[in-house]
């Protein structure tokens, strides 16, 4: 099958480097990206400590990655998660995706642990493990600059900051001083392997089935995006247009998700970003780049997205966008996930408010928030309590704090408050890595149809979006935002796939592929955590027990009994038992024979 490269396997313990063919059946059944990652982890990572050298870190692209197609500069990074104990992955926009594909590889599997801090240098056929003594201890911005100076700006770089080096479970992997991916602790896994960075330089080209048709369709795709009526506004505000939207719909995360509206929202929204706009950044191959750069309160550049601002803004009571931008930049430099960071700081502020910790941390305390970024990055002081995530923090703190530790399966919830969005709450609860919006996204549809209902149609829609976003986009490994944000036609994608591989795939087949991936991820959780089951598919108690006290959704909370029904429907539609475990017939139909034995054996 055309359009694919090889799998590069690097063992940091013994230095062995191998290049493997990827079978056509693997390509057909799992497509690439997340699909490849979960299959490899299922086959090769069993019952290991996520921070041990037995875990594997997988950098995986799909057949659309790195091609001259709309927003195709993406990559999935996956491993067994040290934050959740289950399957973890992240999606990052990076030149490393483009260079890796040009170098002839689709996947890099990193095994073992280097004896001393190292980085991986991939230059087409040449693959080396290089001493990283000059870079270890540097923040991600400094290290990016130094690596570019050494290897040239025409290289793709993925790296960790001091948080990853310290194996902090909420650390992530960074690229290009602002692109991040790997929320469930992929940075910590990389740090546990003494691996500071991947530097990739590729000079070849992907061999596609029909180059001329692909080129023509790519150009038409870019033209279609630019002609969209929502394009100009998107270019002004990017994802930050969601800020005003969420505040209006009372789903803005505010004061550790207690409320859904923020009194100072107009100090932080997309119109403020427009006013303070200093530069634009984004992913390669994208003509609708969403990284809006402003000067933070210290005068340095910080790249903002909705999630950063939502979680480091109203969620912790911050009222100034430049101050939020500074916290965001610090997080990026440390290599900390901004969503989990915002949730961790919010948790501590609430714990202080309730007198559960002796430290005084007021909502919106900017100085304290800055200190906490460093403490969390080091795992020291108060940071030690939350650096393993709010689930562990609440289990340590007790005294009812589990009820407002805002996570699902150990992954902190991203920036939609769901007191009055039961479908989105279910969406977060059933997202395969824990609560994350890249898989979970039914909220727009829910609000536009009937946000207060708990019906089966909502569950069906949720699954449809999971198949498209978490299945197809994560495995083709191309950005979903053209489709989501400017209504780029979704039927372009099977056309692109056909021009690349020579094989026509229907949406029905791609949905089945998505189901296969979801079922295997589910099985991975069950195998690695024997007690895994239905009770892991719930949003926090806060959404069931503490209604909003302000805003137009005042008094609203999720009905627990009706949520249970929706969850039961979800399992039924997925072909799982009522404990959320895939049934034998479901797995068999997806070609996953033998999987059930491993999770029940």
């Amino acid at each position, binding site marked *: 099958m055309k359009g694919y490269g090889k799998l590069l396997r690097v063992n940091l313990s013994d230095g062995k480097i191998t290049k493997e063919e990827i079978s056509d059946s693997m390509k057909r059944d799992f497509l690439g990206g997340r699909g490849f990652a979960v299959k490899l982890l299922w086959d090769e990572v069993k019952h290991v400590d996520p921070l041990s050298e037995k875990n594997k870190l997988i950098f995986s692209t799909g057949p659309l990655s790195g091609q001259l197609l709309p927003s195709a500069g993406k990559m999935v990074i996956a491993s067994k998660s040290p934050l959740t104990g289950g399957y973890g992955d992240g999606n990052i926009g990076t030149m490393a995706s483009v260079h890796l594909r040009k170098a002839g590889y689709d996947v890099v599997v990193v095994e073992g642990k280097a004896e001393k801090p190292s980085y991986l240098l991939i230059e087409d056929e040449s693959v080396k493990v290089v001493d990283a003594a000059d870079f270890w201890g540097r923040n991600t911005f400094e290290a990016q600059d130094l690596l570019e100076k050494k290897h040239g700006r025409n290289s793709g770089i993925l790296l960790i900051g001091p948080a990853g080096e310290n194996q902090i479970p909420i650390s992530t992997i960074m690229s290009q001083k602002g692109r991040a991916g790997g929320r469930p602790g992929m940075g910590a896994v990389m740090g546990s392997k003494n691996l500071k960075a991947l530097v990739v330089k590729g000079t070849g080209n992907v061999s596609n089935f029909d180059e001329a048709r692909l080129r023509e369709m790519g150009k038409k795709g870019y033209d279609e995006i630019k002609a969209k*009526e*929502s394009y*100009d*506004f*998107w270019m002004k*505000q990017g*994802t930050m*247009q*969601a*800020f*005003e*939207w*969420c505040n*209006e*719909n009372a789903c803005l995360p505010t004061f550790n998700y207690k409320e859904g509206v923020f009194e100072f929202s107009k100090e932080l929204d997309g119109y403020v970003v427009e006013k303070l706009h200093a530069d634009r950044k984004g992913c390669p191959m994208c003509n609708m780049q*969403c990284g809006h750069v402003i000067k933070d309160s210290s005068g340095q550049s910080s790249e903002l*997205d*909705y*999630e950063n601002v*939502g979680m480091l803004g109203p969620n912790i009571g911050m009222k100034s966008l430049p101050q939020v931008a500074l916290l965001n930049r610090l997080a990026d430099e440390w290599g900390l996930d901004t969503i989990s960071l915002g949730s961790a700081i919010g948790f501590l502020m609430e714990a202080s408010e309730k007198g559960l910790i002796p430290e005084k941390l007021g909502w919106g305390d900017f100085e304290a928030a800055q200190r906490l970024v460093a403490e969390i990055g080091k795992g020291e002081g108060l940071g030690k309590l939350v650096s393993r995530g709010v689930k562990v923090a609440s289990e340590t703190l007790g005294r009812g704090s589990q009820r407002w530790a805002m996570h699902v399966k150990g992954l902190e919830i991203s*920036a*939609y408050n769901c007191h009055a969005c039961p479908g989105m709450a279910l969406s977060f609860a059933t997202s395969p890595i824990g609560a994350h*919006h*890249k898989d979970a*996204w039914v*909220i*727009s*549809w829910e*609000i*536009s*149809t*009937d946000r207060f209902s708990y019906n089966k149609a909502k569950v069906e829609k949720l699954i449809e979006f999971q198949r498209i976003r978490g299945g197809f986009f994560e495995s083709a490994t191309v950005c979903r*935002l053209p489709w*989501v*944000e400017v*209504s780029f036609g979704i039927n372009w994608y099977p056309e692109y796939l056909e021009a690349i591989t020579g094989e026509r795939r229907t949406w029905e087949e791609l949905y089945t592929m998505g189901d296969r991936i979801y079922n295997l991820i589910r099985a991975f959780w069950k195998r690695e955590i024997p007690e895994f089951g239905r009770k892991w598919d719930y949003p926090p108690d806060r959404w069931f027990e503490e209604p909003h006290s302000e805003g*137009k959704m005042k008094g609203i909370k999720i009905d627990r009994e009706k949520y249970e029904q929706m969850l039961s429907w979800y399992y039924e539609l997925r072909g799982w038992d009522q404990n959320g475990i895939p049934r034998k017939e479901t797995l068999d139909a997806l070609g996953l024979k033998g999987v059930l034995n491993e999770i029940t054996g």
Partner: protein
Amino acid sequence: MAQLKFFGYLADIAGTRTKEVRLEKPVLLRELLPSAFPRENIVILIDEKPGHLESTVTNESKVVMMPVLSGG
């Protein structure tokens, strides 16, 4: 007065983020909007209930129109 709020790019098309309109009698929402207003992929709420371009708007209505979007 009927109150209309426009979010995102819809504000650019409408030429305003908010608008008040005195209505002597109920009208269809689309009659209050420019002809270039999009017909798909928009969220319409009339008094917090889902609506559409053919929904009836009265002098007391509060209408919110937003794009379908996702933060990232």
